[in-house]
């Protein structure tokens, strides 16, 4: 693996189009060096998942993703036997005179083992990036199971034995705070909170990701989004929404915002009808803010 320093990470993040504060690079760097998982929390759409993707690209390794959901258990996360395949194999070989022991050994071999993300990640030769997405959606039982794997770095399969990790993946856990994560998990991780970006940072992100956008339009979009986030909405739009919107408007070859366009395209940004209604009511006021400030800027 490449030697990676703090400034390399910062440079790589920038090259990958990930605009970040200094703290983010530091957290990534330390989690790699100290070999601790990185727990990233923050509101939806601020680029939590993106961190893992950028890390994988920057390190030039594979990204293995485990999406968590309620009811996720070890057969989805770790391994499972390929039962159908095993049955077929047995049927095919019962006539051929292979001894029973031989047969048993061959059914419970790696050939019939379906590796799920976690097992896949720790048995790679080069350490990959393992992204455990929205870990707070999984049940608490899964959390403790995860802790076990993360501290022992081995997986025991009754039929085969213990599989030792050949590599320690870089682990990124993300969470939306839908559930408070256990203290034990927190302690094993480095913690990073990412908030909505400020105006300057968001502008930089928009320009990096949507380079074809008009300068004035991008400024107006970011001011508008900033003002929008000040309102008390059900679902506050994240950076992902800003980018969608910027792309949409840039695709329409606009160079500034006006009331009609905003009204027509608001569905790109807001995903809740109540928010939609509130925003439409307050639209003139919001736009006034946007217009006035952009003239000064």
């Amino acid at each position, binding site marked *: 693996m490449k030697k990676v320093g*703090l400034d390399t990470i910062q440079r790589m993040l920038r090259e990958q189009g990930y605009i970040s504060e*200094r*703290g983010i690079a*530091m*957290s990534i*760097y*330390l989690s790699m*060096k*100290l070999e*601790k998982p990185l727990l990233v*929390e923050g509101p939806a759409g601020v680029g939590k998942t993106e961190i893992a993707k950028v890390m994988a690209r920057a390190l030039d390794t594979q990204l293995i993703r485990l999406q968590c959901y*309620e*009811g996720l*258990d070890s*057969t989805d996360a770790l391994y*499972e*036997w390929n*039962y159908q395949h*095993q*049955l077929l194999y*047995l049927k095919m070989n*019962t006539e051929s005179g292979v001894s*029973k022991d031989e047969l*048993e050994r061959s*059914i419970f071999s790696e050939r019939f083992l379906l590796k799920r993300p976690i097992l896949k990640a720790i048995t790679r030769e080069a350490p990959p990036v393992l992204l455990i997405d929205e870990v707070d959606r999984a*049940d608490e*039982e899964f959390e403790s199971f995860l802790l076990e794997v993360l501290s022992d770095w081995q997986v025991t399969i009754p*039929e085969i034995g213990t599989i030792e990790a050949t590599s320690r993946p870089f682990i990124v856990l993300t969470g939306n*705070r*839908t*559930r*408070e994560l256990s*203290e034990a998990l*927190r*302690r094993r*991780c*480095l*913690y*990073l*909170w990412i908030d909505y970006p400020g105006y300057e940072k968001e502008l930089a992100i928009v320009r990096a990701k949507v380079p074809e956008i008009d300068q004035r339009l991008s400024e107006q979009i970011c001011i508008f989004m900033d003002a929008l986030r000040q309102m*008390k909405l*059900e679902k506050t739009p994240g950076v992902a929404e800003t980018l969608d919107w910027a792309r949409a408007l840039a695709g329409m070859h606009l160079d500034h915002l006006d009331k009609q366009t905003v009204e027509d395209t608001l569905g790109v940004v807001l995903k809740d009808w*109540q928010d939609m209604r509130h925003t439409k009511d307050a639209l003139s006021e919001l736009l006034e803010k946007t217009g006035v400030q952009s003239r000064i800027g």
Partner: protein
Amino acid sequence: MDVLLSYQTSLSANVVLLCRYLRKNGFNLSSTEEAEALRALTLLPVDSELLFKEALSAVLCKNRHQQSRFDELYTEFWDQLERAANSKVKDVQQRKNNKSEAQKKQEQFEALKKWLNLSPASEEKEVAAYSDLEVLGKKHFNELSEEELRLMFRLIERLARRLAHRESRLRKPAKRYRNLDIKRTIRYNMRRGGDIEKLQFSQRKQKRLKLVLLCDVSKSMDLYSRFFVHLIYAFQNAYDRIETFVFSTALHRVTEILDNNPPGEAFGIISERVPHWSGGTTIGSCLNRFSEDYGYSLLDKKTIVLILSDGWDTGHPELMRTAMRRIYKASKKVIWLNPMAGSPHFSPEVTGLKAALPYIDVMASAHNLESLRKVMRELGKRRSNAPAIKFPQD
């Protein structure tokens, strides 16, 4: 790690001191974190203070709250250290802390003594006759005698306990022949040669529901609050995870008080601690407070929110509406127990309550046991898509 800990430069000593300082301010740090912080520092160039601080923040903070407080504490710490300059300060500080600790203990002791004198522990009698309970079912809570009340509470406790267990989507092996588990069946028989000899079954895992209780203790609820506190107790005993809040003009978390004290005493303690007990109500702002401060960590789709209040709100109805909407969206179910709903002349005309109505799954009177039982039945059911507002009448 051992090597690192053994060579103590003044820097590493200071880092350890910083950890100690953070610990005093509620950071949960063990020697592992200290060692890790020191290790992190060896990975960095020594000349940048900003990097130094960032690295420490990355290693030592374990949640959002800590991350936002770190900067302030960090500055405070170095300020103090600078002012101290000599080693004396540490001693002084420690002495100060000891003193405050002793004071605290004394206070706690005094308080304890006071409570004990005020309400001597009541011993509950064992009275159990099911027929009695049936008669109790229809009696209004206001008309109950002391003895009957006690019976009532035991019944409530039983109901609450039955509700505490629900089924989860995760499955576990079962002995009973109900649902065939194909995966496990094949796997089991595979070990024994491949012919299906024995079937394996599974059943759903039990899942515990979580409960958040929000209890109105304002003047208008005075008559009922005694009963409600007992109701809270019944739930508290039956559920593992239950959070209790009381509110009138402000919101107070009382989970711990209820956990650590017997029923008779807890009631007194809460009314002592909570100012404005039996004062006016601003339900809207209290609920808002709740959803802002605790919503994230307490509410999820396994949580039932139980609000005990008459809905007399002196605040703005809009506030009520937004708060209720937020709570409704984040929870499994919102149940509003309203003692006034038991009177035949009741209709939800109170403006605050009107605003909240669309976000209530079940609105029920809680004036007698019969009605409570109905509520209990509703607790477990799934929320239908359109919020159905029901008034279980007897």
